[in-house]
C-alpha cells in the first residue's frame, strides 16, 4: 500500500513544478513581447544619431538628446504633432459627447432592439478601415472635409465611439438607479439628478474614456494617411517619411508616439478592465 502510493506522490510535485515553469515562461515571453520593442525604442531615442546608425548597438542609452533634437527640428514635425493633438482632442470631445448619452441610455432604459444595438456598436469595429477609406475619401472631397483636421477627427470618432459607449455603459451601470430615484424624490429633475448625483460619481471613469478616445485617435495611422495630404498627423507623417528619413528620426518619432499613449493607458487601466468585464454580462 505505502510502496504503491509513493511514486505517485513523488510524481505530483514534479508535474506541479513543470506547470509552474511553463506558466512562468509564458509570462516572461508575453512581457518580452511588449517590453523589448519599447526598450529598443527607448535606448535608441536616447542615444546620439551616430550610435543609432553605428554597430554594435549599446544596451544602455548614452542619454544623448541629439536624436530627439534632430527629430523636433525636422521640417514638418511640429505641424504634424499639432495636427495630432488637435485631431485627438476633437475626437475625445466628440466621442464622449456622443458616446456617454448612448451609454447612459443602454444602462438605464429598456427599449426594443437594445441588444441588437449593443452588437451593432461593436460591429462598427468589424469593418476593415481600408474598405471604408476610399468611399470616405470621395465623400470628404465632395463636402470639402478632405485634408482637414476636423474631417479626420470625425473618422476617428467613429473608431472611438464603440469603446466610449461600452465604457460609459459600464460606468453608468455601476451607479445604482436608486441614487437617481432618491434624488428625484428629493426635488431633482432628471437632468438635475444626473448633474448632482450621477456626474460626480462617474467623473473619473468619464475622464478615462475620454483619454482612451484620445489615444485611439493619436495612434491611428491608416485613415490619417489616406484622408490627409498637407495636414498630416504625426503617425501619417512618420509613415510617409518612413523610407526617406534617417533611423534616429524614426526612433525618436516612435518614442514620441508611444510614450503618451502608454502613460494614458496606464492611467486609465482600471476602467478598461471594467469595459472588458461587461463582455460577460
Amino acid at each position, binding site marked *: 500500500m505505502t510502496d504503491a502510493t509513493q511514486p505517485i506522490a513523488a510524481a505530483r510535485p514534479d508535474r506541479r513544478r513543470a506547470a509552474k515553469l511553463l506558466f512562468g515562461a509564458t509570462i516572461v515571453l508575453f512581457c518580452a513581447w511588449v517590453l523589448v520593442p519599447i526598450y529598443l525604442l527607448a535606448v535608441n531615442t536616447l542615444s546620439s544619431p551616430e550610435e543609432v546608425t553605428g554597430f554594435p548597438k549599446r544596451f544602455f542609452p548614452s542619454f544623448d538628446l541629439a536624436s530627439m533634437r534632430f527629430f523636433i527640428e525636422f521640417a514638418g514635425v511640429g505641424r504634424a504633432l499639432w495636427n495630432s493633438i488637435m485631431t485627438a482632442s476633437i475626437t475625445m470631445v466628440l466621442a464622449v459627447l456622443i458616446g456617454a448619452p448612448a451609454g447612459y441610455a443602454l444602462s438605464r432604459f429598456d427599449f426594443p432592439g437594445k441588444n441588437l444595438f449593443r452588437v451593432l456598436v461593436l460591429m462598427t469595429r468589424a469593418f476593415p478601415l481600408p474598405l471604408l477609406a476610399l468611399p470616405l475619401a470621395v465623400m470628404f472631397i465632395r463636402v470639402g472635409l478632405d485634408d482637414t483636421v476636423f474631417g479626420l477627427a470625425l473618422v476617428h470618432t467613429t473608431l472611438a465611439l464603440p469603446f466610449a459607449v461600452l465604457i460609459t455603459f459600464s460606468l453608468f451601470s455601476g451607479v*445604482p438607479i*436608486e*441614487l437617481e*430615484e*432618491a*434624488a*428625484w*424624490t*428629493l*426635488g*431633482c*429633475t432628471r437632468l*438635475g439628478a444626473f448633474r*448632482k*448625483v450621477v456626474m*460626480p*460619481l462617474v467623473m473619473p471613469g468619464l475622464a478615462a474614456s475620454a483619454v482612451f478616445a484620445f489615444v485611439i485617435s493619436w495612434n491611428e495611422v491608416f485613415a490619417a494617411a489616406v484622408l490627409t495630404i498637407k495636414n498630416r498627423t504625426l503617425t501619417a507623417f512618420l509613415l510617409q517619411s518612413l523610407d526617406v528619413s534617417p533611423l534616429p528620426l524614426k526612433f525618436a518619432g516612435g518614442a514620441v508616439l508611444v510614450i503618451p499613449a502608454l502613460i494614458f493607458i496606464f492611467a486609465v487601466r482600471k476602467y478598461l478592465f471594467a469595459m472588458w468585464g461587461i463582455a460577460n454580462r
Partner: protein
Amino acid sequence: MAEIQIKGVAKRFGSFTALHSIDLTIADQEFVVLLGASGCGKTTLLRIIAGLETPSEGEVWIGGRRIDHLPPRQRGIAMVFQNYAVFPHLTVFENIAFGLRMQKIEDSEVERRVSRTAELMHIEQLLKRYSGQLSGGQRQRVAVARAMAMEPEVILMDEPLSNLDALLRMEMRAELKGVLAESKTTTIYVTHDQVEAMSMADRIAVMHQGKIVQAASPVEVYRNPAAHFVGGFIGNPPMNFLTANSAGEGRWEVAGQTYDGPAAARKTIDFAIRPEDLEPAEQGIAATVRVVEPLGAHTLATCDVGGHLLRAVLESDTVVRSGDVLHLQPRPDRIRWFDPDTTLAI
C-alpha cells in the same frame, strides 16, 4: 392634511398584471403597512405613489390633489429605499441637506433642520463622514433623516429594515415607529415581515397576487382574516385549516367533532383555528403528535389529523412526546370559517 387616495390603480408589464385595480384610502397621519410576499405588487404600488412608476390605469390623490401625472419632486413625498441610496460622494450632512438645498432654503435654516433630524436619528456625531465610512444601520438612519428633513406630507418606505441584522432591526423598528408618530406624517411602509407589520402599523393592507386582500388593524387582520391566504400568511406558526363536513343546519363536523358554524348551503367548508387557540382536553380533535418543539415560553406541537397538518401551541410544562395522541379543543369564539371556492371568510 395629507390623505392619500388610490383609485382603481392597475399596472401591467406587457402581458403580466402586477396590480389589479387597487382602491385604498389612507387617512392623514395614518401608518399603513403594505404586507405581502415578494412579487405581490406591494413595491410597485409604492413606486406608483412615489412617481417612480406610471400606473397603467387609475388615479392617485394626495391631500385632495391629483398627483399621478406629476414627477416625484412635485408630489410632496419623501422616500426611504431598501438599499438606503445614501449619496456616496456627499457627507452625511450634505446627504440630509440635499432635499433642502434643492428647495433653495437658506443656509441657517438648512443647518437647523439637518442638526435637528440628525439628533432625532442619533447620528449627530456622523455628520462629517461619507457613506463608505458608515455601517448598514447608520446608513439607514441617514436615509430616514434625509427623508424626515424634507418635512414631507407623506413618507414612503420600501422595506427599510430588511438589510439590517435581526437585533438592529428590532431596535430600529421601535425607534422608527416613535419618530414617525412624532412627525405627524402619513406613512406608507412596505414590508414582507409580518412582525414588522404587526408591531408598527395602524392598519395593514395584506397584498396577494396584485390585489389587496384585506386592509384592517393588525389585531383584526390577525383575529379575523378576510381570506384563507391572510390566515395562512399572518401568524407564526400560521393558522390551521381543516375540512368541515355539513352536519345539519349550522352544524359542522371536523375530524369527528361537531361545532356550531355558519348556515351555509354547502357540503364542505374550511374550518380554521390559530395554534394558540387549541387546548388539550378530555374531548376534542384527536391529533397524533409528530414533532415537539419546546420554545421556552411555550411548546409547539406539530400534529397529524387524518393526513392534515395541525399545529398547537401548548403550555411549556405540558408533557408530550412524539407519537402521543392529543385531544385538542378549539376555543369556540376563535373558530373561523372559509369558503373553499372563493377562499373568503364566511
